[in-house]
């Protein structure tokens, strides 16, 4: 009897908290970081993504399920630089998890690891919802992703030292494939250099900076404010004077404004995936850039 109980207890201990099988809980704010976490962390991590490509990462409801997930997280991987300022701080305060509070090892802000564009000189609310620390949508430049991946590797190693070798191997493998892929993309995107695009929101800055594409205007009169008819009219004037090659929007931005402008200016309108999961074939970061570049080239024709 006692042996029976003892063996059941041992089995239970093994099942519930074996050091060999305990996964690190990672909470990724956006799908692009979830994908990066998967590349580097593989089987050792149990990853939860807070948002999908169809949700605006600036405006997420602070849902109870997110609080419960953050509470159990060992590592938070988010963009930072103010992108999640509308919802993440409340969640962190309510979750009571001191491992992932800002400044702790468990809190990884991708955007602070790289140099940012669009850092404003002065900021005030009349300029719209401007990010004071610079543009946070850093995942759209593969070179920056490489830098972030390196920083993430270091962070993973410090949280889970036993997995250090495993992560290093995966990182090396990822880096090799990534650098190869970058060369291919830069070749394919040659035709895109110098083209002119109207965007919906300035989330494309890093992509277009890398590809040498010019952002001629934005559907939002000011960041965070939806497109208005008056603004469309002024955009139309500008486009008539100096034509643009296409209008671009994300899956989470309603296509109506973009389509309207496309109609009145006879410009092609294109929906780009923006992040992993934003289109059917986009299942990881590699697909993201492949499909994005292909779609841009398709819009040119």
């Amino acid at each position, binding site marked *: 009897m*006692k042996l029976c*109980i*003892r063996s059941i*207890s041992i089995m*239970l*201990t093994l099942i*519930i*908290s074996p050091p060999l099988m305990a996964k690190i809980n990672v909470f990724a704010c956006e799908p692009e970081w979830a994908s990066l976490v998967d590349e580097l962390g593989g089987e050792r991590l149990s990853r939860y993504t807070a948002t999908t490509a169809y949700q605006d990462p600036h405006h997420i409801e602070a849902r109870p399920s997110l609080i419960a997930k953050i509470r159990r997280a060992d590592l938070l991987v988010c963009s930072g630089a103010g992108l999640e300022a509308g919802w993440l701080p409340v969640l962190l305060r309510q979750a009571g998890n001191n491992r992932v509070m800002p400044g702790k090892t468990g809190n990884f802000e991708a955007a602070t690891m790289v140099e940012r564009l669009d850092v404003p000189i002065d900021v005030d609310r009349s300029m719209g919802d401007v990010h004071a620390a610079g543009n946070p949508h850093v995942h759209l430049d593969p070179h920056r992703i490489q830098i972030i991946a390196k920083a993430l590797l270091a962070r993973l190693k410090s949280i889970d030292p036993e997995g250090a070798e495993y992560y290093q191997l995966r990182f090396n493998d990822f880096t090799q494939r990534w650098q190869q892929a970058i060369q291919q993309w830069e070749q394919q995107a040659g035709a895109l250099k110098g083209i002119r695009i109207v965007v919906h929101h300035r989330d494309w800055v890093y992509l277009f900076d890398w590809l040498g594409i010019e952002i001629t205007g934005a559907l939002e009169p000011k960041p965070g404010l939806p497109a208005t008819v008056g603004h469309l009219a002024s955009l139309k004037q500008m486009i008539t004077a100096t034509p643009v090659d296409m209008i671009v929007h994300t899956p989470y931005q309603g296509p109506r404004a973009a389509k309207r402008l496309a109609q009145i200016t006879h410009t092609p309108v294109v929906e780009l995936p923006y992040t992993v999961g934003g289109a059917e074939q986009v299942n990881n970061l590699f697909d993201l850039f492949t499909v994005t570049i292909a779609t841009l080239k398709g819009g040119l024709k």
Partner: protein
Amino acid sequence: MNWSAIDLSILGPALIAGLLVTATHVPLGQRVLQRGIIFLDLAIAQVAGLGLIMAYSIGWEPGGWLVQLVTMSAAIVGVLLLYYTDKHWPQIQEALIGSLFVLASSGSILLLATNPHGGDQLKELLAGQILWVGFDQIMPVAILYSAILFLWFGYARRANSLVFYLLFALTITASVQLVGVYLVFASLILPALAIRNMPKYALVYGYIVSATGYVLGLVMAAIFDLPAGAIIVYSLALTAILFTGYWKVTGKVQFKELPGD
């Protein structure tokens, strides 16, 4: 003595299950003691157990909602039966309650007679399986108990017997599956006995006595490798006795007799 067995990841869910049972059983137990229907809870818990065993015998999935429905229905039928007999034959109510308990227990034995795991299942029913409880089992119980506590504290004064009995049936059905028949009885009666003479804050003290009993019992079960359900019954008794003893010694509380003594 195995001190390393005190692992929160193993004992955590059991502790929360214990606290949930405490939350509902202390106030219900007070009322049970007031009404003098002490053995009703044993009988109903056993009837609920019979329902559970019936459902398993038919071959339904343990933990499935159909099983829960059958168990709850069994408990409600048992409660209605006793309510009816109380109305019509109050003089022999105690005897009827005892008979129901014995009938339900024997019924369980009969049903499990051909089942090779019968003995284990019976023991599980009586002594409970609090250590094997998981968080997913706890959630529905937590929501059910919150609703029951809301109804209890919101309408306590208006509650007539039938409402009380029905709430009771629902509560017992859930707790018997978490902690077993004996611990259900102990959680209802022991803390209530300890606090019956408290002039103020009786409920708060009851919660403290019961929670302390559960924590102590779980720790002892972990260290000494003993069945948790059975040892928690003893630790509840211990905390109840210590509590009563403390107040008697300090003489601040006047000890009244139960009505009808």
